[in-house]
């Protein structure tokens, strides 16, 4: 039901995209009508020609020549119209699809982080890719077959009625039979297809799980048992697939059977009319019978096609609705204009009475205030879920505060364009992300114009130079999606190199070295210390050993600051920080 409801607005939105191509649309309708009518005219011409061939010594050659010349012209025109029609539809469909995809992607760049965090990636990807594809198929089929189909049906009816009204009515009454037959079968195969897709999903789940865990499976020599389990599902799938495929494949032969019956009835009735009207003035001739038979054959085709198109279009519009839902999503609050002139950020960060929560029923950060002077090194520690990463989300403006404000050099960060703000902050997250491309592409993300010397210097500082050099093509080695075969630690080193190259005035390190061994970590820390000289930095870490050097340690618990101070002071206090710190040495 919900899908039905979405169809109308989706259709309207689609029309708005098509409007850009309205000239093409008008042309498409016209050529569709022209080509359908021309193609319908051909059986008439053939029928008339055949009527000139009566028997031995009785053939009207002159008229035949005239008729056949016309036939050639009509066929050529019809073919040309058909070709033009396909080209127009092609251009229109892929144009619309191109526009829709661009809009969808542009919207992804503007969506608030809260949307992206709450919607699975696969779902959004499938909207931009699979749904748009389905939409394109439906649109193309719709353009090509809908108008032609309608014109053909009406045209056929008119031609048939003109040739012989009685037989035409007979055809009109009989054809729905094949539609009923098709509908009857599809209704009954629905449950079989459902069973098939359920079993198939079960098999995919097993395949997915076992192939993902293939190394464990092999370590425990479970190949045989897993295969048995797989075969059990495979056997069941075979049985229900066979049923579903066989029963659904009945549609074609059965409708063809019905159509053939109609054909036989038309032949019978037609032949009788020819005999009974023999010699009359506007006689029903053999040629007419031939035309009529060919129409009877043609008449059912567009019906089947249009019912196919309607299903396809409904499906396409349902897909379109899902894409438009994405495109119409509320974008993040736009940047304030006129604040571009903050050229140099020094790095004073202030939190003033900040309140924030992801969902209203679970308050997270309450009444948070803190002043961080330029060049200070701040460490944020606390148990899982205490709001450390949230603070970073707020500084970067991935999320905006619910109330209160965050200031940078005294300006409310919401008044600073995002690109200016973020351009001044270097960020390394625990969850590494690399794009597919070369190592160099990944490192220069923040500074596309960096020279080779600068890149190498950054790599050396981040201790990634060693392993990069050992890759087959060094900095030009292509890595697959999300880093491909690099280890987790190596990926983190690359992300650190990326920031080392930028040298922004503010730094955020969120568990940036969690997958790196402690020895390399210390060396990187040293590099960071040099880099952080004079820069404001926020460091989140689980390993308390990595944050001892901070100017200020902020200990958080349940969204609040519970303690602040230097490492030694906090230990001396013997409070929450001290208990966190000591737990790692318990043995």
């Amino acid at each position, binding site marked *: 039901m919900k899908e039905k409801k979405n169809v109308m607005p989706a259709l309207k939105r689609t029309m708005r995209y098509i409007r850009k191509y309205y000239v093409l649309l008008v042309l498409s309708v016209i050529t569709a009508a022209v080509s359908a009518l021309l193609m319908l005219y051909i059986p008439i011409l053939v029928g008339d020609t055949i009527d000139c061939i009566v028997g031995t010594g009785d053939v009207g050659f002159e008229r035949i020549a005239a008729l056949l010349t016309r036939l050639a012209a009509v066929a050529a025109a019809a073919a040309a119209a058909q070709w033009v029609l396909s080209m127009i539809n092609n251009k229109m469909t892929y144009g619309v699809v191109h526009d829709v995809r661009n809009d969808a992607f542009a919207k*992804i760049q503007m969506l608030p982080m809260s949307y992206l965090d709450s919607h699975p990636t696969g779902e959004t990807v499938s909207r931009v890719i699979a749904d748009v594809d389905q939409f394109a198929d439906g649109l193309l089929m719709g353009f090509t077959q809908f108008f032609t189909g309608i014109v053909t049906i009406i045209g056929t009816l008119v031609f048939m009625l003109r040739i012989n009204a009685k037989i035409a009515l007979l055809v009109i009454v009989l054809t729905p039979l094949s539609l009923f037959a098709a509908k009857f079968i599809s209704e009954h195969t629905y449950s079989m297809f459902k069973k098939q897709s359920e079993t198939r999903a079960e098999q995919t789940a097993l395949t997915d799980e076992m192939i993902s865990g293939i190394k464990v499976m092999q*370590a425990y020599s479970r190949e045989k048992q897993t295969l048995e389990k797989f075969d059990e599902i495979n056997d069941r799938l075979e049985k229900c697939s066979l049923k579903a495929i066989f029963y659904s494949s009945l549609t074609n032969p059965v409708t063809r059977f019905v159509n053939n019956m109609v054909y036989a009835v038309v032949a019978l009735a037609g032949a009788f009319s020819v005999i009974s009207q023999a010699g009359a003035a506007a006689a029903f001739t053999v040629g007419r019978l031939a035309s009529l038979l060919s129409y009877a054959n043609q008449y059912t085709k567009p019906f089947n096609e249009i019912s196919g198109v309607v299903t396809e279009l409904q499906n396409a519009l349902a897909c379109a609705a899902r894409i438009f839902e994405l495109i119409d999503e509320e974008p993040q609050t736009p940047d304030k204009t006129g604040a571009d002139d903050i050229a140099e950020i020094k790095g004073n960060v202030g939190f003033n009475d900040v309140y924030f929560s992801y969902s209203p029923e679970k308050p997270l950060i309450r009444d948070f205030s803190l002043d961080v002077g330029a060049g200070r090194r701040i460490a944020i520690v606390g148990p899982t879920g205490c709001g450390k990463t949230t603070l970073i989300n707020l500084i970067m403006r991935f999320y905006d505060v619910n109330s209160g404000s965050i200031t940078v050099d005294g300006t409310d960060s919401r008044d600073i364009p995002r690109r200016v703000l973020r351009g001044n902050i270097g960020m390394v997250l625990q969850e590494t992300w690399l794009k597919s491309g070369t190592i160099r592409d990944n490192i220069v993300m923040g500074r596309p114009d960096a020279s080779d010397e600068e890149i190498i210097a950054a790599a050396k500082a981040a201790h990634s130079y060693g392993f990069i050099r050992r890759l087959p093509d060094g900095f030009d080695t292509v890595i697959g999606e999300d880093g491909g075969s690099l280890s987790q630690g190596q990926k983190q080193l690359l992300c650190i190199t990326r920031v080392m190259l930028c040298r922004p005035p503010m730094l955020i390190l969120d568990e940036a070295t969690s997958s790196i061994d402690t020895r390399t970590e210390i060396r990187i820390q040293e590099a960071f210390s040099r880099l952080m000289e004079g820069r404001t930095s926020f460091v989140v870490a689980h390993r308390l050993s990595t944050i001892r050097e901070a100017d200020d340690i902020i200990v958080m618990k349940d969204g609040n600051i519970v303690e602040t101070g230097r490492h030694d002071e906090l230990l001396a206090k013997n409070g929450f920080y001290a208990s966190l710190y000591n737990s790692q040495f318990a043995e």
Partner: protein
Amino acid sequence: MNIFGFLKYYKKESILGPLFKLLEASFELMVPLIVARIIDIGIKNGDKPYIIKMCLLMLLFTFVGLCCSLTAQYFAAKAAVGFAKRVKHALFEHITSLSFSDTDELGTSTLITRMTSDVNQVQSGVNLTIRLLLRSPFVVGGAVFMAFTVDKTSALVFPAVLPLLSAVVFGIMYLSIPLYRNVQQKLDKVLLRTRENLTGVRVIRAFCREDSERTAFETENTALAGIQKYAGRISALMNPVTYLMINIAVIVLIYTGAHRTYDGYITQGAVVALYNYMSQILVELIKLANLIVTVTKAVACGKRINSVFAVGTREESTASEVPAPVGDNAVEFRHAGLTYKNAADEALTDISFAAKKGETIGIIGSTGSGKSTLVNMIPCFYPATAGSVLVNGVDVKEYPKDALRSRIGIVMQRARLFSGTIRENLLWGNENATDDEIMDAVRIAQAGDVVDGRKKGLDAEVEQDGRNFSGGQRQRLTIARALVRRPEILILDDSASALDFATDAALRKSLRELDYDPTVFIVSQRTSSVRSADRIIVLDDGKVAGTGTHFELLENCAVYREIYDSQFRKENA
């Protein structure tokens, strides 16, 4: 190996299916003949009973045709589904036998798509081929043949036009198939960029790359639309051109027919019949064109599946007997080295050490120093590319695979559980373990509270990938799984990383007290996890940087001391 070879199990169906289809087509081919008779005999003589008889005959043919067609559909479905089942079985079996380096190279996500969507494509290809591929040429050929029986001279048009038609159909296909492959590749790129922009949104925004990503996407998207339009333009030629050619043939046919009728060789009905046969060819051509797209796709997917079968060149150990142990070393590395496939450099170089039965060996080193690689060579997941690895004094390559692996309990870095119950997961270690034995292993792995904490105990449900358990719980259960086996060699590959220090210590203590005294390998980044080992191997950049006890290494191994200091430095200060 060619998957289409699996069709041989469905010889009967693959032959009978098309045969029945042909039968149906033959009955269809009779229809124009009957119409010709109705015109030439029935109408000419005003013989109504004859016309009725002929129409009834037409209905009978149609009905018999329906029966043949249903039989053919059944055989086609049976062959296609059975074929797909066999392909999937063989493919799954093959994939599970792939070596680790083959799996690394192929990537699991491709293997999953090949196992699912590719096989489905091939299945529908086979189904349609049996149903239609023979039918269309037969109907075309049959129509030509029948035309000749009607009148040889007029029918000469058919053999003249057919090669031209085939040239057009296959020519357009030949041009468009590579274009469609190109479309698919461009679409893959658009998909990749969309995915990346979603998974990497924080980084992209942090580096203000939104605009450049959008420009890149638009370029790729425009390229996609361009190639789609181009491919569409080429294939849009198919219908108009064939349509025009058929109509020209019709003109020639009717013109010749007119002369032949005038000369008294044929009748008016015969001309109608010839025209009908030409129309049938047109209809079949359109069907054939649609079918060919599906078949091409199926062939492409079949090739992708074949390429998986082609991988798997690993030297299967031919040994069938378990070799007798030699000496008292449980594990020995003799100048062993490993170069990963397609890697420029060795991941491990010249590793030599020996572990006596019952010893505990610690392995420590920095990120990427080769710790996991080293332990993965013991069960021969990656065979040594230089030197050799010995278990019980015999080269691991000389063991039957299962015999080797059944002696070893390995707990991998990524704790992986499978959907089912806790018991089912733990039984992987040893199918015949009793509940008491399982619970013993669980307690040793410090997972007692994990099992007891669930209402159903060992029968508690495990969701896919064990996602209803926390990281630490998963780690302890995977350790228990290895212990259920009572292995001769136990390998813990950084598998206590999610455990707190106290649990980690308790685990190590209970491992030391195991009554069957296994040789234990502990891989870790924490010096505290390995300090009590009998021997510690320090790896640096794929080479051994030092071997010895904790105190020996503190004395004389700079790398070890650095690691130790990085963790405990401030306490001494």
